[in-house]
């Protein structure tokens, strides 16, 4: 499954389901369990329906998601939104760091 059609095409996967959602929602819409279940259910049907390599489009659309993401990106003045590249583990929270370091 994937939401970047041109990148999927470049990779030539054996079979792929394209979901035309913003990146970050490849498994379904935000805070919508039923919508997420529907996306994954339909995505998995590809295992039964593909008879040759290719990429098909899933039928779901999500205008509210595009509006949400586009509004946020318009407020971002930076062209380079990547995080710095180094070899320090990048924990989501300080608590995660502490728990992981206790396990090492």
């Amino acid at each position, binding site marked *: *499954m*994937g939401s*970047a*059609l*041109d*990148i999927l095409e*470049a*990779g*030539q*996967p*054996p*079979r792929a389901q394209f979901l035309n959602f*913003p*990146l*970050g*929602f*490849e*498994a*379904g*819409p*935000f*805070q919508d*369990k039923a919508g*997420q*279940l529907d*996306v*994954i*259910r339909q995505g*998995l049907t590809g*295992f039964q329906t*593909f008879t*040759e*390599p290719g990429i098909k489009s899933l039928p779901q659309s999500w205008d509210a998601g*595009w509006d*949400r*993401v*586009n509004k946020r*990106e318009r407020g*971002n003045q930076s*062209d*380079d*939104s*990547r*995080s*710095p*590249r*180094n*070899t*320090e*583990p*990048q*924990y*989501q929270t300080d*608590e*995660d*760091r502490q*728990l*992981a370091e206790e*396990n*090492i």
Partner: protein
Amino acid sequence: MHNICSNHQEQSNPMAPVQYIQKTRETYDKLGYPPYRWFHADSTPAFTSPAKPLADSRLGMISTAGTYLQGQVAYYYKDDTSIRSIPNNAPIDKIRFSHITENYLAEARQDPGTVFPLESLSTLEEEGFIGELANEYLSCMGGIYSQNRVIQELIPNLESAILKQELDLLLLVPL
């Protein structure tokens, strides 16, 4: 692998898929960076139809969102080729993400199901839609710039872990 490319759809056709490769190229040019080298497959992939119906199959999953379970070591952002195994019954509120394009993770960090369908897969197994799930899902960092390191390190790591799971089907969910 996604880099500096926005999520904006084209105004002329709001439903047209975003051209992420082109947008990345334009952004790199604007910033004065050398062109990003996207992977382009040079051959048609092998294709095999599943031997069994989905309802009788054992399914695994790979997430490229830098997914980790709280308590595990997070990924780092410079060509991290390690992988994590995440139990299929892990609490959803303990699922975390460390991916170089953090701008795509704002919602996933509140609702991991947007990129890591742990709950959706469990529901589909309970329904009998999927026969059986792998005991553990796999994750990796999807933002590795070195194609050589992906081929020589990451893929063998994943392949070794996948083969131990004795799967019929494997779902890849990229970020």
